[in-house]
């Protein structure tokens, strides 16, 4: 997995966000402000633009460029959360030109930590961390397996985690003010996290 493979993962994620834009907006409309799809598609669209020129650079450089592009295109909640996630992921593999299967869990764990650090959410607050947290656990548990397996395991866990947010009462973010009215709705940030991880995982099949 070199820088170009990391780039391919991010581009696949970008396509997934384009496809899910309206669905994510609709989810956000139920308990938030209906713009999560716009933010994610916009952020990954900016990543796409920023990465177009990058070729043959190290994974860290790709991830740092993605962090900056996402942040400045989006703002919102997702901007700092994903920007921090990408920066942490970049830092986790700093100095390496090529990543092996053993680096996969660390990338996912670093992203989850970045999101937790920036957002100060805890699991159960009904945020994207309820997808990224389980994903991080699953990635750690799959350590030693091929990167594709690690990412798919993380995506599986993220999907289950996202599904579980339906039963949660929001304690952070816009939805927090809803109290019990947030029950019964899936958190849009958790939903997009699962989609992202799955799209990233699939890039291993294609390559």
């Amino acid at each position, binding site marked *: 997995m070199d820088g170009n493979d990391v780039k391919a993962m991010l581009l696949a994620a970008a396509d997934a966000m384009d496809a899910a*834009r*309206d669905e994510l*907006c*609709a989810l956000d*409309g*139920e*308990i*938030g*402000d*209906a*713009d999560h*799809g*716009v*933010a994610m598609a*916009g952020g990954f669209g900016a990543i796409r633009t920023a990465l177009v020129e990058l070729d043959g650079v190290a994974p860290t450089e790709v991830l740092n460029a993605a962090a900056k592009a996402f*942040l*400045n*295109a*989006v*703002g*919102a*909640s*997702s*901007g*700092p*959360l994903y920007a921090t996630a990408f920066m942490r992921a970049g830092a986790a593999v700093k100095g390496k030109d090529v990543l092996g299967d053993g680096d996969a869990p660390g990338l996912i764990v670093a992203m989850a930590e970045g999101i937790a650090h*920036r*957002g100060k959410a805890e699991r159960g607050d009904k945020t994207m961390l309820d997808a990224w947290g389980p994903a991080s656990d699953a990635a750690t548990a799959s350590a030693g397996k091929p990167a594709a397996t690690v990412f798919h395991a993380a995506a599986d866990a993220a999907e289950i985690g996202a599904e579980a947010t339906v039963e949660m009462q929001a304690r*952070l*973010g*816009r*939805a*927090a*003010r*809803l109290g019990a*009215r947030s029950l019964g709705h899936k958190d849009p940030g958790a939903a997009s996290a699962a989609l992202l991880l799955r799209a990233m995982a699939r890039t291993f099949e294609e390559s």
Partner: protein
Amino acid sequence: MQTKKIINDGDDAVDEMLDGILLAHGDTLRTSADSGRAIIARHGPRDGKVGLVIGGGSGHEPTFVGFVGQGLADAAAIGNVFASPPPDPALACVKEVSGGTGVLFMYGNYAGDVMNFDMAAEMAAMDDIEVRTVLTTDDVASAPRDEIEKRRGVAGNFFIFKAAGAAADEMMSLDDVERVARHANARTYTMGVALSPCSLPQTRRWNFDLPEGEMEIGMGIHGEPGIERGPIKQADQIVDEMMDRIFDEMGAASGDRVAVLVNGLGATPLMELYIMNRRVQARLEAVGLSTHATWVGNYCTSLEMAGASVTLMHLDDELQRLIDRPCHCAMFRVV
């Protein structure tokens, strides 16, 4: 089917709006060289004055950009529709308006804004500019009183920014401007009601569903669900529900003074806002509160949402003086 809007590409809406604003109001506003999303007051920022930087998502115009000008905010960082600006424009604002005595960030209490502005404040600290933050939390419907720190900032922003901007314009110190801002926020109470949804330029779909004949009390200015949904009531009843809740929070004594804002969310005609004001004033009179000043109009909107809010600021001598102080903004002035 898409909602109807007079726009070009939805992704360009915010930038094209800013172009149009600068073309209309170039005498009072300019952009920062560092960021087209940092709108700076031509007159206002100056050496020795605390800089006041406000900001947040677009779609609430004239909030925030319209309140940039001498005597009110020195700059506004502009986000996408209903999305906090990233740190960069906020940082650009700081650099443009810093007069050597510190900068105050003021914005509504939303998770996204807090994260982005905090990042900008950290970056400003690296340049040795002291930035402090006061969040507005005037929406009494958005959390119970014992979780007041969770409340969001809505139309009351207008009064709170106005007071802090006047304090800075009086050349108060950063400590004092911050104190005034917190005090103003603590004495400002808003309750809103929504009648219809709005739609983002990028999606052109209704962002929530509010069936025919229904309204929602306490809905947020981004369409965040409120505290109660039910059949539309008469104006006087709606205002009474708002005023009961606000009175309960405010705990004012007979003879106290207030400033009143009856705010439209975008699609509600002035006719309805003034009908509401009639009842607001009747209720104030009934409990012996005196109205020092009243503003009625679209001050904090949610694109084309129909609905309105009532804000009371519980004045004291200092707040009254600050609210009365002249200011010259592109979309608002006090003379």
